[in-house]
């Protein structure tokens, strides 16, 4: 029940945004829970008709980097 879907904002009208999820499905959702401003093109995570958080692209890149480190470590050790 805690499923939440990453979706891209394609339109904003006050506190309501149209988002597009993977596969092109579009939906209107509320922005009332977001602690920060979002713009068109931003990715948010959507649950029960609300964006509950903006996806942090820098953190996503950082976790890619950490994964790469783990995997490099593997190549060195195994």
């Amino acid at each position, binding site marked *: *029940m805690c499923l939440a879907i990453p979706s891209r904002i394609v339109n904003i009208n006050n506190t309501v945004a149209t988002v597009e999820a993977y596969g092109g499905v579009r939906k209107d959702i509320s922005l*009332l829970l977001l602690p920060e401003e979002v713009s068109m093109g931003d990715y948010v995570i959507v*649950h029960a008709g609300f964006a509950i958080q903006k996806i942090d692209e820098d953190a996503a890149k950082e976790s890619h980097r950490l994964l790469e480190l783990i995997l490099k470590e593997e190549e060195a050790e*195994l």
Partner: protein
Amino acid sequence: MVNTELFKDPAIANKLSRQIRHYIRGPLRLMEVCGTHTVAIFRSGIRSLLPEEITLLSGPGCPVCVTAVEDIDRAIAIAGHPDVILATFGDMMRVPGSTSSLNEEKAKGRDIRVVYSPMDCLKIARENTDKKVVFFATGFETTSPSVAATTIESLGLKNFYIFSVHKLVPPALTALLSASDVRVDGLILPGHVSTILGIRPYEFIASRYQMPAVISGFEPVDILQAIYMLVLQINRKRPKVEIQYSRVVYPDGNPKAIRLIDMVFKPVDTNWRGIGVIPESGLKFKDEFSSIDAEKNFDIDIPLSKEPKGCSCGDVLRGVKIPTDCPLFAKACTPEHPIGACMVSTEGSCAAYYKYSGTDIG
């Protein structure tokens, strides 16, 4: 552009699997607290990538499963009022109460509707001013902020009510970790509950119980990386709470959502199906929101509720038993004819075991 494909990459998943095998020192019992993780783990076949030393246990994090029988009975009682439209999330429809379910009541002619978002109820209320619209609100911290925001948005509507049986994850973890019969070496913590809560409400897990814990995302690579992080923590004997799912879980969580929960709700002792009453683990409306609180506006006295006989859901939800230990599993209790709530919800561990049995359960 956020590239989430990397978190689904089978080559990376295989490399992480080899890393886990390389570092593991002995048998480990790890609990995935969240039902959405349970389903993700089965669906992606992660069990087949793990060494046999690792046993994955499902935890209490399935809101459908832990909604008390008496609360289902109360929702049914509310829906029995002739001028009521009861709305709820689709997952709640088939959950058995003492003698009936919302689905059965709908078949008898009650006006019971499934909504995607609590905000959908406001439209139903505006279009049906001669009716009372009641939202049966279930779910953890992922969902309760949306219901709090809907509460604020609904002020001014005279025919809208909410029956809140929301529950809180950290008090349930306290109950779990204090129980003498629960044997767990590390926790995979819920990703989206933590999107709201951040890391602080979990810090007691490491400081008070010396239990390693990692907040994980839901893709196969996320979950394997979380398990890898747990294995390293266990080896180093330095338990802490870490965030694997950093693209969505910030250390402070979502402060605006937390403020909304605090504005509208207060924590109360509440009954978890199969587990029992956990102190301060439920959310009810604060007094200033009495006008929207269904429990203050409807007569919902119900006869004593009955738990199904022989059902092991309570032990399954605490990781003491796995579904196949239950004598009813796949015999008297199946997804078509569920006896316990863990078989009803697609995120219940019994339903997940049933659906995927014969694949990679181990």
